[in-house]
């Protein structure tokens, strides 16, 4: 469904008055992977390895320096933004920063509903928008009577649900989830992870999961790619990579996970 070929993103490093380009930061340095329908594909790695840059390239919040991304066989750089937004959506890490504090929940989610229908050439009334918004809120496990409330009235987990509802409003086929649970408490984290799985089952979604928590990745994903300094150093099914890592960096990463057993087995 999604195919990434030799994707590169270099950020220029500028010096001096004339902003002379002296070097490049190779944030993403020639990565390739493929995602099938209903698959959950995880990109893992430590901070600065290029995983968030990759996420932004896929939804075209950044333009690639080189390489191509195909969605259902079409090069995404040839698609219009609106068209792309209807196929691929993104959920951000920080549910506090990614919702406009001045808009009501009804507007945040309803805007996306209207946007989709208008792109499809349909006219939609206020009442109908509200109905559709309520459906979405219900789907992500939120009460439906919150249309006139503002983001600050909600907890981190609830805001993340609002972000998910907004992404679903576009009826995408693929959702890029950039650290969707890393800012949430453990007890709430489990709720959101379950929700992501429920939505995959009921809507047939695929996910690209960007994460640094290897326990979360193991639980949630089918396939995993380990990134290090802008490159994918190891990739395969979760079982294969976790049970039998080959690359020394993957081994180091897996060994560093604080497991519940380590000390107790001593």
């Amino acid at each position, binding site marked *: 469904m999604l195919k990434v070929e030799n994707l590169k993103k270099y950020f220029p490093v500028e010096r001096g008055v004339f902003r002379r380009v002296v070097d490049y930061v190779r944030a993403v340095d020639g990565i390739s992977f493929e995602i099938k329908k209903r698959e959950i594909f995880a990109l893992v790695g430590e901070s600065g390895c290029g995983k968030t840059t990759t996420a932004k390239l896929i939804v075209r919040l950044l333009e690639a320096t080189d390489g191509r991304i195909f969605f259902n066989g079409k090069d995404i750089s040839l698609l219009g933004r609106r068209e792309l937004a209807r196929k691929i959506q993104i959920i951000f890490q920080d549910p506090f920063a990614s919702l406009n504090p001045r808009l009501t929940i009804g507007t945040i989610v309803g805007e996306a509903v209207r946007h989709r229908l208008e792109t499809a050439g349909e006219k939609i009334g206020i009442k109908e928008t509200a109905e559709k918004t309520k459906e979405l809120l219900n789907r992500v496990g939120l009460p439906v009577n919150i249309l006139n409330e503002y983001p600050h009235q909600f907890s981190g987990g609830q805001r993340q649900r609002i972000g998910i509802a907004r992404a679903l409003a576009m009826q995408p086929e693929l959702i890029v989830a950039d650290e969707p649970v890393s800012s949430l408490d453990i007890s709430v984290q489990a709720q959101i992870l379950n929700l992501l799985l429920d939505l995959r089952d009921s809507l047939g979604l695929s996910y690209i999961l960007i994460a640094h928590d290897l*326990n979360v990745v193991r639980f949630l994903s089918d396939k995993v790619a380990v990134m290090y300094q802008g490159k994918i150093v190891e990739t395969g099914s979760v079982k294969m990579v976790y049970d039998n890592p080959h690359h020394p960096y993957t081994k180091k990463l897996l060994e560093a996970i604080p497991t519940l057993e380590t000390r107790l087995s001593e």
Partner: protein
Amino acid sequence: MEKILEVRNLSVEFYKGGKVIPALRDVSITLKENEVLGIVGESGCGKSTLALAVLKLIPEREGKIVSGEVLFKKEELLSLSDEKLLKVRGDRISIVFQDPFTSLNPLFRIGNQIAESLALHRKENLSTYQIEKEIIELLELVKMPKPKDTMLSYPHQLSGGMQQRVMIAMALSSNPEILIADEPTTALDVTIQKEILGLLSELQKKLGLSVVLITHDFGIVAQTCQRVSVMYAGSIVEEASTSEIFHNPLHPYTKGLLESLPSREESRDFSQGEKRRLRAISGQVPDPSNLPSGCKFHPRCPIVIEQCKPEEPRLREIIENHWVRCIRAG
């Protein structure tokens, strides 16, 4: 083992927008010599407030310690004068905070910042040469690869892990007896986290430190702590040895938390088409300014009964050295 630090019935309130927020409610902990005690809980449960309150660091304008006492080697700390308290705080009890990026002053070289803490906490006057020697020894103690270069660098030139090592070196510069570490590795990557935790354990043994480790990560607790206190909504709901907590959790909140971890050990066979779901705790952490009546966990509790609602349960010792705040346990 001797008790080195005892917190008894400590309550702290914060005042915000005309509201009283009970951040800590009747918290008691005991730290023994040479022990690593873990304090676990989710954000807002009061674990960082506890660290601050022990050292009387609650900003006066924002809140205050309402009741309780803190005994350090049988000496009460909270009633000490500021002057006397300074001899304990940062000197015999040191603290390492979560975020090394904001804890170091960006304008001074690492060496100067460590020198400042040496100057404040050492009785004797050290010569420049001695100070330099001590700084290098401290940086070697926390295993900085190039202590001499580090001494001359500015904080931004060091990585997060290296900055945290510097923070630990500063905390140890006064030869403390107790080290309080408040989420010391949360801001760091896993591989670096492993190094820092390893370093802390090693130093704890080598220097005979007693450590209070505050964290939200049960994995870290499993690896480093001997005893654990689990906090929820400002009070301790369960306390026991680490292995007891993991093998025999008695409070429904502790049980729920442990079950909701997507632990690595939970390796599953995906080919069977089995539904992968975590056992999540329903609901969310209560708003501290609007706590429920009775047991603070009752709205989320799977085994709640009518008797849980009117009155908050006491912390009871159900098995030897295993304390639980739940009327249904045991």
